[in-house]
């Protein structure tokens, strides 16, 4: 994102930030697909597709998109936990604390 010559960040920090940006981009693509594409742009064609008792686009508009939003934030929180651990940016040592092992 920055391409800045004065950057003070280490390679490890840059790699972490790149992974973070990539994850955000992927999740926001899904976010736009379920809300703006499925429930608004394709609202008319998808309302002829039946999803159990409802037209598919209606289900996305009033139920499905919200459920997907929840999944997106949980995926983000879990994936970032993994990244924090992998790149050693945990603010609190989760594993050690959970196991009750001291460093």
């Amino acid at each position, binding site marked *: 994102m920055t391409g800045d010559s004065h950057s003070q960040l280490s390679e490890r920090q840059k790699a972490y930030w790149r992974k973070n940006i990539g994850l955000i981009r992927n999740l926001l693509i899904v976010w736009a697909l379920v809300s*703006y594409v499925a429930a608004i742009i394709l609202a008319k064609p998808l309302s002829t597709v039946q999803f159990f008792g409802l037209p598919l686009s209606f289900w996305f508009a009033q139920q499905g998109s919200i459920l997907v939003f929840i999944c997106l934030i949980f995926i983000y929180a879990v994936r970032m936990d993994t990244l924090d651990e992998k790149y050693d940016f945990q603010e609190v040592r989760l594993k050690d604390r959970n196991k009750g092992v001291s460093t």
Partner: protein
Amino acid sequence: MSLEALTLVIILITFAIYIYIGWWAKVKDTKSFYVAGNEIPAVANGAAIAADWMSGASFISMAGLISFLGYDGTIYLMGWTGGYVLLTLLLAPYLRKYGKYTVPDFIGDRYYSNGARAVAAIATVFISLTYVAGQMRGVGIVFSRYLQVDIVVGVLIGMGIVAFFAILGGMKGITWTQVVQYTVLIVAYLITAIAISFMLTGIPIPQVALTFTDIAQRLSNLQVELGLKEYLAPFQNLSAINVFAVTLALMLGTAGLPHVIIRFYTVKTVRAARWSGAWALVFIALLYTTAPALGVFAKYNLIQSLNNKPVEEVMQVDWVSKWTQTGLLKLEDKNGDGKLQFTSDKDTNEVTIDRDIIVLSTPEVAKLSPFVVALVAAGGLAAALSTAAGLLLAMSSAVSHDIYYRILKPEANEQQRLKAARIMIFLAVLIAGWFGVHPPGFVGEVVAFAFGLAAASLFPAILLGIFDQRMNRQGAIWGILTGLIFTFVMILLMRSPQIFGTAKPVIDSFLGINAQGIGVVGAILNFIVSYVVSRATEAPPEEIQQLVEDIRIPKGVGQAASH
């Protein structure tokens, strides 16, 4: 015990809990007052965000509003939940890493300018003020509806309660009362929805009943038969471009609302900020996926029980006679055939339903015990009070922290700052109460103003502050001003009948986008102006560029972290 006595008892019990928490949480330093000492666990913060977020209107009016809008009600459902994805992925973790007290704090420091700080503080105060006026009114309305007290008395009682726990306990008191308030409101809402879902479909889970039975289809067919709009078809009430724009404006506005953003400062770590966002959306979605189901059930039931039924027979039903007395349900046999007809034409339609009745009447329609009716009253109050408290803190901290301490009197000591914070929140309660008693013309336009302005001013400035290292003071200030002024003027012009009392709106729409969606255009203008101006002026100073890098990466306790 009569229903009124029962309602009074339940409301008094909840109020006693809120007051006790305020007393228990009393704080002695500004860090506890503004951000609860960063000690709130992520799940509790999630519940507090949900209560902060869901106002009296979400609780009482939203299901009804959606049942009138049909498919197009998605603007509120997606708009007010999808914003949390943006907030949690794009803003919250970095603001937590930055770690100060308010939104203007971040904007002022990031853009190394007290001018930017002042503009952000004014935007924060204005956004929160429009919003809080409606909340205080809501408290008064719940009191008058359930306990037959005057609206003014209701507003005064609400002010007293909020003032007590907010002044004593600051953010800490507000947070823990919000956790309790969330519990009260969600229990009341779900019991009601589960009961009517079971009564009409035999399935107790409203979301499942809506998706897997044909009840929505039956409602849609019924509406078509009566000449009303097809419930399940898109764009019957709003054009496609407006559904798109309003949904996006509400999402961007959600992510830019100061009273929600400051809640992310109250947790310990960046990780906890991410998880608060996740829990917040779970708690919010519990109500937001239930509301459309409740709307369908209640509307179907209303039409079934009233359409083509003899007036005298209908008036025998308890809930019908009760709600016609309040004026929320109007039955007039206009053609004199002794029966009631729903039609789409104002002159022949014989049943007029206020949208609030969808939630308010459902406990009685579903024959729930008076205890649940009383709980719904307490839930409505909890929703309005919790949102009011969060807004009051956001607007008073913008004045006491950003304007008083950071701009006017940087030498103020801890004691003076805490005193200023308490005085400001007290003044904010008085102002909110005054607007609750004398609602100004713009109170009905809260959604357009608060969300439009947050989307067009604060959201782009914070986002660019994190993701565009090259963004500088000039770009941000010009961008915020452009977004703010454009959106503000557009809403005034489009809503001139409600605000200035003109016969017709000065302009109907901008490129087909209405007042609720105009914040999107304001936000786009903000982004463009910020980009162009920042590239034409010098880069921000070295230490600001380092600040931007610093907020992007959590601190870390590992050995490799010390670089």
